């Protein structure tokens, strides 16, 4: 599953134009607690969160998160988007709630493209 698949699955929007979407997502971590991202995520993970503040991007950078999806339509400020662009961190946004977003990704990863 590449990031472009995630974009389609979640009816998402790319916030960081120019950042590539060909990154292969093999690990996914979902949390609004940055403490948990730091403690339990693996390097290279795709992060789903509804926390849209500068700490999300800084946490992603420090924990080697590869891309971030903001769920529930939580749109970060332009400063956060610019920060992510500067570090080449792709940011996506979806209107789906966390549970649905995770479910769609889980089914896709489990069953392939037919899981949607």
């Amino acid at each position, binding site marked *: 599953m590449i990031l472009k698949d995630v974009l389609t699955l979640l009816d998402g929007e790319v916030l960081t134009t120019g950042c590539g979407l060909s990154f292969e997502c093999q690990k996914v971590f979902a949390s609004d607690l*940055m403490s948990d991202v*730091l*403690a339990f995520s693996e390097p290279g993970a795709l992060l789903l969160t509804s*926390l849209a503040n*500068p*700490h999300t991007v*800084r*946490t992603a950078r420090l924990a080697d998160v590869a891309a971030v999806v903001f769920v529930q339509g939580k749109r970060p400020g332009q400063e956060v988007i610019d920060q992510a662009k500067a570090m080449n961190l792709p940011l996506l946004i979806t209107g789906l709630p966390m549970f649905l977003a995770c479910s769609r990704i889980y089914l896709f990863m489990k069953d392939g493209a037919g899981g949607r």
Partner: protein
Amino acid sequence: MAGEAVFRQEFAVKGGDFSHGGVVSCRIKDLLKEIGLDDRSVRRAAIASYEAEMNVIMYAWHGRVNLSVSPEEIKIVVDDEGPGIPDIEMAMTEGFSTATTEMRELGFGAGMGLPNMKKNSDSFRVTSKIGRGTRLEMRIRRAGGAP
């Protein structure tokens, strides 16, 4: 015993400055990568440093982060002036937290800070004096040695 440090730098952290939380640790991560350290050690040091930095911002008045790198290890020492930690054993318990609503809204204060610093260090030491401040000392062994 670790060899002599080949790189040292000190950073200031201001208590209550939530908007800049993580800036020092991002700088530390960049420096460690520039030096050419392995990805795993850099990530562990960055996470330990970030937790310690946020600890100063959330609980202390101000603090200093001292980074030193020797051929064997990364050493991060964080000294703060603040209220101190009354019960270190309790503070080391996962999930124990005295965080405020503001801290939790930023995604922190889940009671993972000190345990996570320990998890990402090969040696972790915390000492504290009530009404004076806290010292966190973290050592992370480098994989592969000096570049």
